[in-house]
């Protein structure tokens, strides 16, 4: 009971602005909050098969960076690779932008191919204060050199061998330009020794080394405090920033916020009314066990909601439907137990024994029948788009939790309430038999 109460409280508090608990506010899917979902097909035909995973992962990072530039709160960028598990044949990128309804701009921004640029820090920039720097554009601080991703041939991960003042074994990124790049690079390094040459990926500085000397062989080394993972990521980004994977928009979905809001309120209303009706039915038909079942149902709902918050499960319109369905099914386990108990009562057992029998016999049925629902939920999860996944999750989790609450909580309540057996005759009183039997027969 303590858990139930605690869960209830945490549910109450999180909608308000307590920041720590606000993290646990419900997550709503696009069809309830409004927003856009874009699906791109990545053309990996020109990439060696071993590199595809890295390419997709790089693509994801780049796109995510761009989406973040767009100022969207909590965007989701995901790679979907083909295979038996995901059931597709293409490499795909899924982009979810909550609250964004102008898809034209979003698509334009995303559709650009990733950009690698080398820029020199302008001499005036040294004189800018920290405050001023924040407000300056990239162009004002860094001058373009004309050297960009199209000249890069490849980037490699290497480790220093400890000459001079360097420690050995530090990760560095070695880049190689193609022949035109080499010439351009030589010119830049010759003319700007001692200056900072910043490397930009999509408008963000990823490294800003100082030019030490003229470089004629078209090779450069970017060093400076990378962890091995950072260096690996940079190599990957450079290689694929320079070789973008072409992407093609294959599906878009936009829901306006007002439509989403309507769906949300409607769903909640349906849930509340449905619940109320079920409780009414339970109490009327099953009387005292009905009250117990209703209590157990309330706890089930609170527990489920808490689990949905913690995981977190994103609610879609279908997801709410799934939850409502699972409320209906949650009662099932309780009904099974009660019917069984009623039968045992008819056979003349005491209330306590009937309950006992009811629970143990019913458990097998409950377990088997709920497993089938779980199987369906798993397959639905595999099949679906994010909307369907929401349904599968709420249904699947709901079923599992309902099994739990029916067995543990109902059982605890009923045994607590049931009159004790040792005293024999009292337990067979007509009143308690009445309370525990059901329906309209007396």
């Amino acid at each position, binding site marked *: 009971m303590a858990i139930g109460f605690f869960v209830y409280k945490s549910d109450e508090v999180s909608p308000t602005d307590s920041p720590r608990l606000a993290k646990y506010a419900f997550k709503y899917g696009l069809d309830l909050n409004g927003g856009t979902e874009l699906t791109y097909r990545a053309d990996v035909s020109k990439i060696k098969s071993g590199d595809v995973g890295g390419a997709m992962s790089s693509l994801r990072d780049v796109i995510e960076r761009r989406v973040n530039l767009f100022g969207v709160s909590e965007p989701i960028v995901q790679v979907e690779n083909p295979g038996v598990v995901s059931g597709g044949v293409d490499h795909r990128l899924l982009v979810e932008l909550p609250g964004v309804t102008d898809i034209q701009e979003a698509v334009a921004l995303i559709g650009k191919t990733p950009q690698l640029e080398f820029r020199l820090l302008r001499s005036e920039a040294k004189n800018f204060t920290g405050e001023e720097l924040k407000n300056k554009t990239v162009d004002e601080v860094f001058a373009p050199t004309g050297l960009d991703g199209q000249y890069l041939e490849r980037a490699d991960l290497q480790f220093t061998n400890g000459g001079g003042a360097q420690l050995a074994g530090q990760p560095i990124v070695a880049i190689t330009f193609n022949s035109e790049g080499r010439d351009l690079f030589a010119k830049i390094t010759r003319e700007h020794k001692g200056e900072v040459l910043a490397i930009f990926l999509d408008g963000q500085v990823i490294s800003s080394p100082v030019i030490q000397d003229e470089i004629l062989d078209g090779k450069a080394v970017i060093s400076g405090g990378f962890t091995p993972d950072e260096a690996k990521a940079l190599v990957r980004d450079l290689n694929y920033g320079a070789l973008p994977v072409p992407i093609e928009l294959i599906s878009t*979905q936009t*829901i*306006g916020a007002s439509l989403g809001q*309507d769906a949300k309120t409607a769903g909640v209303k349906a849930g509340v009314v449905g619940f109320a009706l079920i409780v009414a039915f339970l109490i009327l038909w099953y009387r005292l066990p009905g009250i117990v079942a209703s209590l157990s149902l309330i706890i089930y709902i609170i527990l489920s909601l808490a689990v949905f918050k913690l995981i977190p499960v994103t609610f879609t319109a279908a997801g709410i439907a*799934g939850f409502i369905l699972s409320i209906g099914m949650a009662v099932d386990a309780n009904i099974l137990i009660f019917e069984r108990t009623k039968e045992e009562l008819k056979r003349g057992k005491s209330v306590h024994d009937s309950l006992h029998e009811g629970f143990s016999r019913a458990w097998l049925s409950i377990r088997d*029948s709920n497993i089938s629902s779980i199987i369906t939920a798993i397959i639905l999860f595999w099949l679906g788009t994010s909307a369907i996944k929401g349904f599968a999750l709420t249904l699947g989790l709901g079923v599992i939790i309902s099994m739990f609450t029916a067995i543990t909580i109902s059982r605890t309540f009923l045994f607590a309430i049931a009159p004790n057996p040792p005293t024999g005759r009292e337990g067979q009183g007509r009143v308690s038999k009445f309370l525990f039997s059901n329906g309209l027969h007396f």
Partner: protein
Amino acid sequence: MFIINHRKIFFTLSAVLIIGSILVMFLYGFNFGIDFKGGSLLEVSYATNRPAAEGIKADLDNLSLGTYILTPSGDLNYILKTRDISPDEKVLVLSAFQKDPANPAKEERFNSLGPVVGSQLKTKAMIAIVIVILCIVLFITFAFRKVSTPVASWKYGFATIVALAHDVIIPTGVFILWSHFRGGEIDLLFVTALLAILGYSVHDTIVVFDRVRENLKVGNRKESFEQTVGNSVTQTFGRSINTSLTIFIALAALYFLGGESTRDFAFVLLIGVIAGTYSSIFVASPLLVTLEKMQKKV
């Protein structure tokens, strides 16, 4: 026993419904939504009143959209269905809806799917349905593996398949019929509802079979299999009806009060729950008896 004794009637009823549903499928075809067909759907709403369709169509005709369908929806909305369009094209299309600056058209939702995506999804959906049915049958055969007399355990699985097929075909047929008159499409949500029905229907069936298994174990040797099944059905009848009733209540609330987007979904589930309960009580269990009698004759 009533149910078992009159099983011929119930089988006939089921058969009629199934044949009817199949006929409806051929007659009206499957009205696939853009989830499966590809294409785009744009819903536009107006604040005060809705301009006439002809004016909008005149502008749309100039946009080389090919065939398109413009339907009014509710009091203030239009729904446009056409081939899949790029976001740039969508801007052009939207401008066709802007007739009066004082009464702007607001985009409510926009879905666009390339045809390849659509057909892939269709295949995936069909595979999903087949897999669910297979898994469930395997599961039941496994769960009832120890109950090999007098009916082999795989026959429980078989009876389940028939019940499940019944549960898939009849709601589909009803939905096609209903949507023919009321509008409605076969989309991903519909398939989801079907799969949910399959999952639920087995619930019911298992409860009855479970009782049969238990009665066989405890069993009165003098009781014929027919009687055992009959008793099991009677014993579980109350529980089946009650559970279905609670789910029915929940779904009815969803249908009447839930949003537009889940209305069709709730409808299919409602039909499915009825069909599922019916199939468990009136089809699956009597089928067991028939199978046993057939096997005796062999």
